[in-house]
């Protein structure tokens, strides 16, 4: 019995050892296979990235399709009429407050633009009236004096020729009337705005003319010596009397009041008729969302007219030109047409969920358009009157009027930049605020040494950047890599073209007067679809060469950027642009040049950048399709003999 038990126990232990050994071998084998075969354990324990992406994409696609199907089914759900009406009204009501707020803000900006339009037109009219008074005063005095003097000389001639007595009566009448016209001209000169004085001058001139005519008639019956001086003198006198009388009549035909005269002289436009728009704006609280949208659109149109008038008046005052000329010179801002969403909102029928969603989208679009209108309106009001905005530094804020500030210096710079195109110039004397305060003196432009920078030198040293500070790692040799670029506009050869960015920088603006058609892209050779709509586009280049996004030939582009300087600095600017180009730094022309090809460093400008933000605007005209431009800032020490 004992033996049997011992045997069983021994057998059991052996079996167990064998079983464990087999299990160990199998486990070890499996572990070894797994450890040694990376492919196996990766596939077993980890999903590889591609598989995850693939499966994820499948899952997402399935989910997207399911969602689309559910959406489509939901959109087909028909809404009961009452519910549809209520839902539609609720959606409109939800957005109405925001729409009302936008209209209120557009109206505020509109009032500011209207005020500035009147202000600018008044200034122009007053200026024209003062100029006219000054000019007419001198003109009439001169003309009446000459007329009277001619009559006196005629008297001498007649005396010399011995026929004085025969024309004595007429001559005395002529002398008396020309003297009278002379006196009327003196008093009219002081009181030219007075219609009575002008009528008096016209009468006196007319009487002088009649007296001269009577004398001419009488003189025809008098025998005068051959080649007599008096005959020629009499003709001369008749001409002058005729001219004086005509001018006096013209003066007499001028509008009666000084204001009307100013308007007449400045050729200012008829007032903008905004009665309907303002009537709607006055009852805006009662308007529905679609009516508010229409009101905003109409108000924007009127604002554009007034803004154009205000800018033209400003330009005409500065350039001493007529309003019409200034208006022609001012670029057509080519404002974007707003979509007719008001009508769409009114006509939309909400019958199912899909219609409701579409209606909601239209409402959102209308709100986005109104927001854009508000931003543009505010921007325009700020441009006309920088103090109306909240910008702490209106001088450097974008959206500033380029044509109006510090004209005298600008004209000097423009002249120098134009005259000295191909020379390296030091413009700091004309640009530095230290100069104007008496430090280095307003010394004008000076030639820079002829030692020019090589392209290799510039390219190898320049790094991208826009900030100049003492702490900055990059202290010099910066190429400007970040730009806002707009274009293309059509380039019309031999025709001066003034385009909106030259007059205002408004990065939110949309212009519709750009190039149209399907020209080929200069690099990709693909056909582009240009509909004339242009917007500023953000552009960053990782190379020194910057290329406009829609690059094509016979086109004009503009590039705008801002640079930051921690203190006022004089910096060398190297510009590389082929074809014709113009560069403004802080609205002052520093470069006006035509080059056959892109070359950098051959013509430099030493420019003063002020502390804080500085604006740079480039106008590029491109004949050939390919174009690059580069703007590099170099430390003054780069030039031999400097620093």
């Amino acid at each position, binding site marked *: 019995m004992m033996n049997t038990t011992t045997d069983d126990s021994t057998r059991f232990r052996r079996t167990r050892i064998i079983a464990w050994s087999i299990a160990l071998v199998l486990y070890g084998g499996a572990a070894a296979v797994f450890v040694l075969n990376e492919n196996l354990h990766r596939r077993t324990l980890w999903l590889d990235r591609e598989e995850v992406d693939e499966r994820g994409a499948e899952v997402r696609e399935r989910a997207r399709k399911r969602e689309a199907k559910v959406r489509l089914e939901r959109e087909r759900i028909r809404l009961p009429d009452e519910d549809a009406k209520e839902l539609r009204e609720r959606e409109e009501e939800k957005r109405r407050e925001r729409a009302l707020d936008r209209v209120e803000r557009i109206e505020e900006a509109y009032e500011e633009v209207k005020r500035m339009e009147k202000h600018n037109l008044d200034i122009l009219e007053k200026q024209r009236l003062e100029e006219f008074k000054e000019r007419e005063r001198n003109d009439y005095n001169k003309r009446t004096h000459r007329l009277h003097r001619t009559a006196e000389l005629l008297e001498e001639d007649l005396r010399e020729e011995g026929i004085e007595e025969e024309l004595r009566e007429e001559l005395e009448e002529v002398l008396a009337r020309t003297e009278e016209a002379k006196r009327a001209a003196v008093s009219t000169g002081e009181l030219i705005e007075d219609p009575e004085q002008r009528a008096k001058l016209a009468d006196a001139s007319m009487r002088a003319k009649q007296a001269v005519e009577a004398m001419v008639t009488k003189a025809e019956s008098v025998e005068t010596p051959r080649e007599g001086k008096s005959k020629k003198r009499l003709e001369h006198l008749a001409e002058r009397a005729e001219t004086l009388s005509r001018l006096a009549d013209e003066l007499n035909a001028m509008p009666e009041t000084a204001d009307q005269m100013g308007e007449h002289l400045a050729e200012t436009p008829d007032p903008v008729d905004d009665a309907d728009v303002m009537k709607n704006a006055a009852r805006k609280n009662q308007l529905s969302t679609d009516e508010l949208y229409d009101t905003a659109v109409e108000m924007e149109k009127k604002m554009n007219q007034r803004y154009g008038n205000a800018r033209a008046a400003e330009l005409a005052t500065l350039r001493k030109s007529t309003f019409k000329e200034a208006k022609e010179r001012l670029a057509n801002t080519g404002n974007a047409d707003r979509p007719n969403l008001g009508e769409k909102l009114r006509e939309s029928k909400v019958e199912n969920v899909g219609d409701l969603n579409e209606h909601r989208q239209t409402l959102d679009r209308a709100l986005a358009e109104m927001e854009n209108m508000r931003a543009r309106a505010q921007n325009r009001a700020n441009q006309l009157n920088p103090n109306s905005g909240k*910008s702490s530094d209106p001088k450097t804020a974008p959206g500033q009027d380029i044509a109006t500030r510090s004209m005298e210096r600008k004209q000097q710079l423009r002249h120098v930049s134009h005259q000295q195109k191909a020379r390296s110039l030091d413009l700091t004397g004309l640009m530095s605020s230290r100069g104007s305060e008496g430090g280095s003196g307003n010394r004008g432009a000076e030639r820079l040494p002829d030692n020019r920078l090589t392209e290799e030198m510039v390219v190898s040293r320049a790094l991208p950047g826009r900030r100049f500070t003492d702490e900055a790692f990059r202290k010099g040799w910066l190429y400007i890599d970040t730009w806002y670029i707009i274009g293309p506009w059509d380039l019309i050869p031999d025709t001066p073209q003034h385009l909106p960015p030259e007059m205002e920088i408004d*990065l939110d603006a949309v212009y519709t007067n750009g190039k149209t058609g399907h020209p080929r892209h200069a690099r990709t050779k693909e056909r582009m679809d240009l509909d004339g709509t242009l917007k500023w586009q*953000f552009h960053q280049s990782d190379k020194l060469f910057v290329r406009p996004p829609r690059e094509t030939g016979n086109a004009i582009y503009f590039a705008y950027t801002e640079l930051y300087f921690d203190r006022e600095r004089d910096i060398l600017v190297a510009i590389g642009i082929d074809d014709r180009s113009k560069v403004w730094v802080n609205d002052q022309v520093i470069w006006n040049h035509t080059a056959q090809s892109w070359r950098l460093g051959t013509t430099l400008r030493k420019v003063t950048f002020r502390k804080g933000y500085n604006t740079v605007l480039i106008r590029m005209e491109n004949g050939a399709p390919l174009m690059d431009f580069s703007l590099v800032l170099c430390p003054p020490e780069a030039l031999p003999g400097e620093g």
Partner: protein
Amino acid sequence: MSLLKKTKVEAEVSLSPLIDAVFLLLIFFLVATMIKKEDKDIDIELPVSTSALKVKPDDDVVVIGIDRTEGLYLEGDPTSLTELMINLRELAGVDPGRRIRLDTDRATPFHRVVEVLDMLQFRGLSNVGIRTYDEHYH
């Protein structure tokens, strides 16, 4: 005798009304002291990130939003590029270290995001974070 033996009942204060009162007070103070937070969120679908860091909420954070149509928002209100530039310039002058949060839709074109980031960097506003989708928040 046993019938005459009185059961001694000990008087005790019930805690239930006290607890009620405490809870009512708590709710009162919670409601009374809750300040309505300014809603700076815009209607966008935030991008998902598995490696985003959670940061403590900051009421002073300046929120810039970009929707899928490239529309810009500042503190939840629509704004224009020009206005945004002016506002950021003013902010950089006053408080360049201010925290800025960029809320963008997952479908917002990336060039628009780069444009705004560049605008911030150029103005010296470097404390910028990009908001991503957070399940707990939503």
